[in-house]
């Protein structure tokens, strides 16, 4: 077997994985930062409940969120039907559904990273900014957000990596359709189920490891750069 030759199916799985992971990262950004901020800075009734809900995907077997997504967002689900009728959007058994599934599973990691980053910012700086005339939104944008940037970046990379590895929720919600929802982990799984597919599975396993290492390496480099920027360089 040629290690450098990728079949069309393998290339499709790789590109799909990256597409799904990128979209997952993009759609997690705003809700992840908002939820992280809420949990770090605000006290409100139901905060422990929200905290638990956000973290559920971390502790549940991934098949459970996947099944719930299928029930709610599938073509027969309440939200799924509504989306279909109102906007003509279908999430069931296509790559968009795979994005939703992996975003849900990656969300706790994103929120934890953001919350930790925001909690480490001295809230008194935010008070100082407001006495200087900054509205709450401006304080958030000009003080909180830049100071939390390294943590947010970590969260995004974690979400990206988690999405690359997503298996259980994806296969339950959107199935294992070649070219549509068969990401790398699903492709590996498929090959292991086929007699004689071991070598192909191994090839994709190596690819997955390399991809994950690259993501972690880039994350580390970006974080160092952000930390250095915060510490020393000039504002402009």
């Amino acid at each position, binding site marked *: 077997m040629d290690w450098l030759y990728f079949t069309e199916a393998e290339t499709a799985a790789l590109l799909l994985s990256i597409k799904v992971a990128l979209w997952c990262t993009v759609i997690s950004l705003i809700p992840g930062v908002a939820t992280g901020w809420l949990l770090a800075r605000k006290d409100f009734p139901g905060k422990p409940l929200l905290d638990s809900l956000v973290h559920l995907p971390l502790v549940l077997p991934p098949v459970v969120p996947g099944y719930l997504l299928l029930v709610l967002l599938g073509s027969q689900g309440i939200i799924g039907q509504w989306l279909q009728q109102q906007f003509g959007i279908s999430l069931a058994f296509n790559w968009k559904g795979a994005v939703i599934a992996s975003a849900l599973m990656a969300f706790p990691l994103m929120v934890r990273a953001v919350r930790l980053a925001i909690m480490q910012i001295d809230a*008194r700086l935010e*008070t100082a900014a407001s*006495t*200087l*005339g900054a509205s709450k939104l401006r*304080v958030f944008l000009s*003080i909180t957000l830049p100071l939390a940037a390294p943590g947010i970046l970590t969260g995004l990379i974690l979400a990206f990596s988690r999405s690359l590895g997503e298996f259980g929720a994806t296969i339950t919600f959107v199935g294992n359709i070649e070219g549509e929802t068969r990401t790398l982990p699903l492709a590996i799984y498929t090959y292991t189920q086929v007699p004689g597919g071991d070598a192909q599975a191994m090839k994709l396993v190596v690819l997955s490891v390399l991809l994950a290492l690259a993501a972690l390496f880039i994350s580390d480099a970006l974080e160092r750069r952000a930390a250095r920027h915060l510490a020393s360089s*000039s504002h402009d």
Partner: protein
Amino acid sequence: MIEFELDLKRGNFQLQASLNSEASVIGLFGPSGSGKSTLLSLLTGSLQPQHGRILVDGRCLLDTARRINIPVHQRRIGMVYQEGRLFPHLNVRHNLSYGLQLLKPAQRRFKLDDIVALLELGPLLEQRPRQLSGGEQQRVALGRALLAAPQLLLLDEPMAALDDRLKAQILPFLRRIKDETGVPMLYVSHALHEILTLTQHIAVMQAGRLLAHGDAYEVLGTEHVLPLTQSLGLENLLKLQLLPSPQESGCSVALCGQQQVVLPWVDAVAGCEVAVVIPASSIALAKQRIEGISIQNQLHGTIRAIRTHDQRALLSIDVGAELLVEITEKSRQDMDLQCGDSVCCLFKTQAIRLLGHQRKA
């Protein structure tokens, strides 16, 4: 200028304070935990009282009865904290202009360049807060607050985290701000001499209440306040005129009114003004000049007022400047000191603490 009535209960702590003052600079003095910082948070609006009313220059910022509550960022009350609270991700220039760039051109009161010149921040502009010394950070914090064009500037122990040398560096700037900008200030400290450098108008706070406010000596002599100043150590702040003196002697000589004071060596040219602190309890009194004594300073003066409390007497003595002297009530009675008596105030050179001096005469 400022008028407030505030009522806040939080757990076991209750703050009930009201003030109505026209003074441009008010010093708020009180022991730690007396509620000074809480009062400031109420004024800026980061804390809400159960009941209250705040007016600054006739502008209503809070009136619980009328359901008026201007949010923090619209109150235009500047704040300088004990720690600079500079934004670590912005350089000095951007820290300074943070509030300025949020103002409409018509609301702006100072130009960046003017404040930079006033506080001598030019060489620091491109630096990051963590590269600055504590004193420099406080100067930037002062500038940043001023540039936001506050109608009232609150200073919450802005020098408490600085050592004496740095305090001496900041004090002249505070005086400059007071003299040159005309921004009304409420200066909070538990160090009375710091307050007295800036203003004679003080308010005293204890256990969540404002005990008194008005002219410093009047206030400090009142029955409730005197024990407080004694426990915190009452200090005199004097401004002296430096006379030429040889460095070999290790001491400098300066003029207090018409009389000479020998103080620790000051590295400044003759004619400069020197600010010194002398604790009221470090001064002894004698009925006449004493010869053959190691104490270098014997200032003649006249007793202007006497207040006694709890076996201690606080005397105000005119030696060309006002000097507060604290002795036991027993010595006062033994010496039979009365208002109008002339006395000699004795204090050692070492009892004098230098605060700072003008750079040139």
